[in-house]
C-alpha cells in the first residue's frame, strides 16, 4: 500500500496530515517506513495497527487496494495514476486475477500500446481495446526471464518473488539468434525476436536482467544483421565454455554447409560466418 505514496508527498502535506489523520508519532513512523528504515517492535505494532488501516481507508476513496509498484524512478509523470485507474477497470472485468501493467507506457512519453498482462491457469485469447492490449500468460511465466525483466518496471495488483537465476543452454541462445536473423532477412517486423534475443544474450554474458526501459533503448540501436551477429559472437564467448561452443557450433556449421548445397538460404550463410568467427576467437 505504501508503494503508492512517497516521502516527498508526506513531507509536502505534513500540515494537513499531522493531528488530523495521523498523530506526530504515527507520521514519523510512516516516514521511517517510506525511507525503508528498520522499525522496532513498537513502531511495527503502530504501523500495522493504526497507520496501514488509515492508509487503506484513505485509498479506498479512490478505489485503490493492493498495488505493487516496481521501478517507480523510471516512470513518467502521471502514468502511475493512469495505470492504477486502468488496473482497477480491468480488475472489474477479470475478478480475482493477477494483473500487471508494464512496457513503454510507464516510462516513455510516446507509446503505441498499454501492455496489460493477466496471469491465468487457463489459456485465453489476447484482446485489444483501444490502446489497451491485454495479454494472457500462464502462471508458470512467473519463473521466466521475461517476467523478471517485465516486472522490473511495473504496476500490479499482487506481490511476487522474482526469480534471478536461470538455466539457459547454448541451444536456446542459438534458436533466438537464428530466429532473429531470419526475421530481419525476411523483412518482417522483428521487434519481439530482438527483445528476446537481447534479454537472453545480456543474461548469459553478464548475468544482467535488463528492464523494459533498457530493452526499449537497446532495441532502437540494433538495426542490422551485422550488429546482431557481433553482439552474439561476444556474448557466447563470454557466456559459455570453449568445449560447449566447439562441440555444438562445429556440428551446426557442418549441417548448414550441407543444407546450403540444396537451399539458397541467405540466413544459413550468416549463421555459418558467425559460428566460424566464434570458433576462431574462442577456440
Amino acid at each position: 500500500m505504501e508503494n503508492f505514496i512517497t516521502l516527498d508527498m508526506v513531507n509536502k502535506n505534513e500540515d494537513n496530515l499531522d493531528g488530523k489523520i495521523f498523530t506526530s508519532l504515527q507520521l514519523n513512523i510512516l516516514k521511517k517506513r517510506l525511507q525503508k528504515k528498520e522499525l522496532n517492535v513498537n513502531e511495527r505494532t503502530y504501523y500495522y495497527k493504526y497507520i496501514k488501516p488509515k492508509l487503506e481507508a484513505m485509498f479506498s476513496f479512490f478505489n485503490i487496494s493492493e498495488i505493487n509498484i516496481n521501478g517507480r524512478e523510471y516512470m513518467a509523470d502521471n502514468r502511475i495514476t493512469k495505470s492504477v485507474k486502468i488496473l482497477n477497470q480491468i480488475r472489474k472485468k477479470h475478478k480475482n486475477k493477477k494483473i500487471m501493467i508494464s512496457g513503454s507506457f510507464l516510462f516513455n512519453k510516446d507509446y503505441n500500446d498499454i501492455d496489460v498482462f493477466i496471469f491465468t491457469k487457463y489459456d485465453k485469447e489476447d484482446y485489444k481495446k483501444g490502446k489497451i492490449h491485454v495479454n494472457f500468460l500462464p502462471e508458470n511465466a512467473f519463473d521466466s526471464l521475461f517476467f523478471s525483466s517485465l516486472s522490473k518496471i511495473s504496476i500490479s495488483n499482487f506481490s511476487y518473488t522474482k526469480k534471478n537465476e536461470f538455466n539457459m543452454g547454448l541451444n536456446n541462445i542459438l534458436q533466438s539468434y537464428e530466429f532473429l536473423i531470419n526475421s530481419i532477412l525476411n523483412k518482417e517486423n522483428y521487434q519481439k525476436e530482438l527483445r528476446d534475443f537481447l534479454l537472453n544474450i545480456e543474461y548469459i554474458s553478464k548475468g544482467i536482467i535488463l528492464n523494459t526501459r533498457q530493452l526499449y533503448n537497446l532495441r532502437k540501436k540494433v538495426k542490422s544483421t551485422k550488429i546482431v551477429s557481433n553482439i552474439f559472437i561476444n556474448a557466447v564467448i563470454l557466456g559459455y565454455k570453449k568445449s560447449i561452443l566447439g562441440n555444438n557450433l562445429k556440428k551446426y556449421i557442418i549441417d548448414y554447409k550441407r543444407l546450403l548445397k540444396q537451399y539458397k538460404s541467405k540466413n544459413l550463410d550468416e549463421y555459418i560466418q558467425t559460428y566460424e568467427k566464434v570458433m576462431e576467437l574462442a577456440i
Partner: protein
Amino acid sequence: MQYEEARKIIKEVLNDVKFEGHFNKCFDNLKETQQKELIKWVEDCRDHKVNIIQSKKDRNLIGFVKKFGSNLRIILTKEKEGYFLALFLDKHKYYEFEMLKLGF
C-alpha cells in the same frame, strides 16, 4: 477462396502434408491477397526459394516460417532428406508454443 480449395491446392504442391493449428478458421479470415501470398509462399518453399531453419531438437527436421500481418504465423516442416510434414497456421501465441515444441 475457401479453406477446402486451399487445402487441395497445397496438397498438390506439397503432396500429403498435414494441416495443423487452426488452419481452416485462420485461412478463411485471410484477405484474398494474403491467401494468394500464402499459396505462392508454399510453392516457393517447394522450389527452395525460402530461407530455412533447422530444429535444435531434431537435426533431421527443417522448417520454413512466415508472418502474416501482426497476428498470424505459418510454419511448414520438412524432413531434411524427405517429405514435407505439416503446415501449421495459427495466431502468434500458439505459433510460439509450436516453435518451442519443434525446437526452432
